[in-house]
């Protein structure tokens, strides 16, 4: 298949899916009855008595909402990839894997029961592995892919255990049934429901790169930039948030877990934000940003503001994909340079990319009137005002917003402003890449105004509308934080070199800690990877080789030696045989006589 055909086909499949999703959306909007959810069983896999495992999908506001994002943003990214991957020899394989991913993610969000959900969950992990390690000759990419997959599997285990527990307690895995039965089956903060929600959380945190299962995400940037945009910004990593939203009934019965979610979310938000401030690989900064924004989504979910979390999921999908694709455009146009210290002044060389990146940065920082502003402000204000929120959550969230403004504009200034730092001859990217950028930029600016529509649409599922408390003081501080961050970035990087060096030297220890990702990778390596490897080596040598193999070999050897001894009896001599015969006769006679 020629390149053009592959590209067209690959995009068409996703585009078609998007159109079908639009149809589903219209059906849901026109007929409010249908919003309770329609289940369609696709395939009956196993039936044992009254129990059957099917592949069934659920079409309701939440799944259609996710599906629109997956197929819509997915389509845009596919189109972009036609341009970005043009020179890659494995063009077809790329689109095959990308389509596989879209399929897997669709399964995940459309699943009608925990079983199909886990199927999608695992498939998405697989697709992620294949795509991160796409350039398989690159050792670092393969290692990163493996790391991502291993952590994802840890999450899968959690999910499966949770599924078993749910089945054990409720006798069904079907979402609608489970959520209907849960209220009677569990008392709030019951041990069982706490465990179930915690195990589900393991899955969610692994997939969404929250602490402590976050170390795979920065490394995942080894994959091609469209992969980072699709999987590690807009869709796969949001699966964790989707899971919590989908199972909100269960989480509402386990307030302790919700508190944990909010805490981990907000801690991850600043943890990641702090690391993003010192990275110099453009994609890594954006990766940490994703981790941080996911933390905000979990914060929202943890305080019960599910619609807001989903709203932020949507706005984030747009501006994060925009940022990643713009970064890709920069990388593509700078001959695969990813280090911002090698860039500078690209504002003139790549005008369109410059504007789109700027728009994405403003949205991310929560600049007023951008989409990110609406969603992020909603989260921050509700971190304090909602029933389960408190001032500490709010304060940390505000700090995170300041960091966000800082780190993204640091990248902006390093990359686009000033004079070029190296003689890299940069050029603007082709239209097939800049068009998606413009489209995403447009949405990054506009979808923010659709907050109420989203809320109304999802209200049927969550059973409530999201409150918007009126608190001008706290709101201003929240908005201000982002602007403060941007201002700090401006000051920092417009300062003279000497002052900059001075500050860097003063903060060196902190800088080191942040740069080395708080040494978590090293800690994990020491505590987990090395012992596991050692155990494996031990098992291989002592148990497998010295133990089992030895036993099997000995069986053969002993048999051989015994037969050697016995064969000595066959002397070949007549007299010996005659003697044996007499001995035998005597024995038989003895039996006969003494019977």
């Amino acid at each position, binding site marked *: 298949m020629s390149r053009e055909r592959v590209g067209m086909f690959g995009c068409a499949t996703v585009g078609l899916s998007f159109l079908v999703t639009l149809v589903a959306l219209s059906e849901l909007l026109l007929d409010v009855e249908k919003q309770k959810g329609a289940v369609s069983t696709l395939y009956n896999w196993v039936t044992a008595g009254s129990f059957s495992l099917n592949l069934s999908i659920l079409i309701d506001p939440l799944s259609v909402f996710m599906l629109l994002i997956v197929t819509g943003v997915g389509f845009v990214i596919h189109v972009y990839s036609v341009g970005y991957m043009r020179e890659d020899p494995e063009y077809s394989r790329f689109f095959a894997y990308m389509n596989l991913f879209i399929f897997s993610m669709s399964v995940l969000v459309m699943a009608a029961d925990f079983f199909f959900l886990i199927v999608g969950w695992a498939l998405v992990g697989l697709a992620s592995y294949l795509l991160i390690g796409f350039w398989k000759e690159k050792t670092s990419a393969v290692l990163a892919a493996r790391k991502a997959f291993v952590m994802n599997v840890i999450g899968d285990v959690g999910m499966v255990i949770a599924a078993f527990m749910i089945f054990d307690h409720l006798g069904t895995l079907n979402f609608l049934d489970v959520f209907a039965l849960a209220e009677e089956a569990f008392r709030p903060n019951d041990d069982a429901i706490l465990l179930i929600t915690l195990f589900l959380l393991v899955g969610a945190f692994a997939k969404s790169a929250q602490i402590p299962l976050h170390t795979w995400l920065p490394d995942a940037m080894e994959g091609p930039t469209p992969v980072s945009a699709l999987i590690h910004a807009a869709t796969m990593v949001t699966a964790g948030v989707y899971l919590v939203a989908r199972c909100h009934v269960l989480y509402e019965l386990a307030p302790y877990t919700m508190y944990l979610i909010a805490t981990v979310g907000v801690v991850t938000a600043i943890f990641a934000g702090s690391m993003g401030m010192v990275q110099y690989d453009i994609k890594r900064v954006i990766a940490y940003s994703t981790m941080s924004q996911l933390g905000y989504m979990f914060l929202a979910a943890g305080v019960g503001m599910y619609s807001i979390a989903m709203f932020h999921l949507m706005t984030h999908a747009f501006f994060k994909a925009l940022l990643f694709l713009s970064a890709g455009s920069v990388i593509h146009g700078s001959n695969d340079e990813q280090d911002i210290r090698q860039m500078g002044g690209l504002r003139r060389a790549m005008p369109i990319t410059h504007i789109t990146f700027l728009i994405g940065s403003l949205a991310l920082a929560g600049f007023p009137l951008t989409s990110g502003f609406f969603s992020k402000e909603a989260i921050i204000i509700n971190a304090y005002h909602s029933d389960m929120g408190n001032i500490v959550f709010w304060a940390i969230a505000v700090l995170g917003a300041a960091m966000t403004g800082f780190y993204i504009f640091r990248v902006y200034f390093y990359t686009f402003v000033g004079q070029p730092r190296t003689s890299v001859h940069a050029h603007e990217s082709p239209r097939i890449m800049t068009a998606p950028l413009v489209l995403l930029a447009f949405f990054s600016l506009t979808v923010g105004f659709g907050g109420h529509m989203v809320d109304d649409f999802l209200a049927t599922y969550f059973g409530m509308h999201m409150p918007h408390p009126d608190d001008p003081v706290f709101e201003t501080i929240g908005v201000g934080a982002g602007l403060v961050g941007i201002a700090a970035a401006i000051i920092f990087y417009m300062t003279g070199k000497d002052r900059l060096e001075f500050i860097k030297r003063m903060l060196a220890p902190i800088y080191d800690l942040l740069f080395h990702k708080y040494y978590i990778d090293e800690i994990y390596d020491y505590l987990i990877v090395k012992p596991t490897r050692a155990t494996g080596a031990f098992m291989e040598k002592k148990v497998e080789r010295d133990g089992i193999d030895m036993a099997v070999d000995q069986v053969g050897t002993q048999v051989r030696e015994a037969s050697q001894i016995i*064969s000595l009896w*066959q*002397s*070949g*001599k*007549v*007299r010996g045989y005659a003697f044996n015969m007499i001995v035998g006769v005597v024995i038989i006679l003895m039996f006969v006589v003494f019977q």
Partner: protein
Amino acid sequence: MFMSVELMLNSVNFLLVGYSNFLKSVDGQIFALMIMAVAAAEVVVGLAIILTIFRTRHDMDVDHIDVLKG
């Protein structure tokens, strides 16, 4: 070695006849006659084997025939 076989057969005959007398039964004597016939046939075969062995090996020691050893 053949001698011992003949000796054994003779002793069996002896026992048979002796007991037939003791138990006033003719069966033992008849059986003894049959044994003698079989012994004769057996001697023929045995001598043939001995001759063949001597012709091929030129060695009469029975302990040296251990081709089936192992």
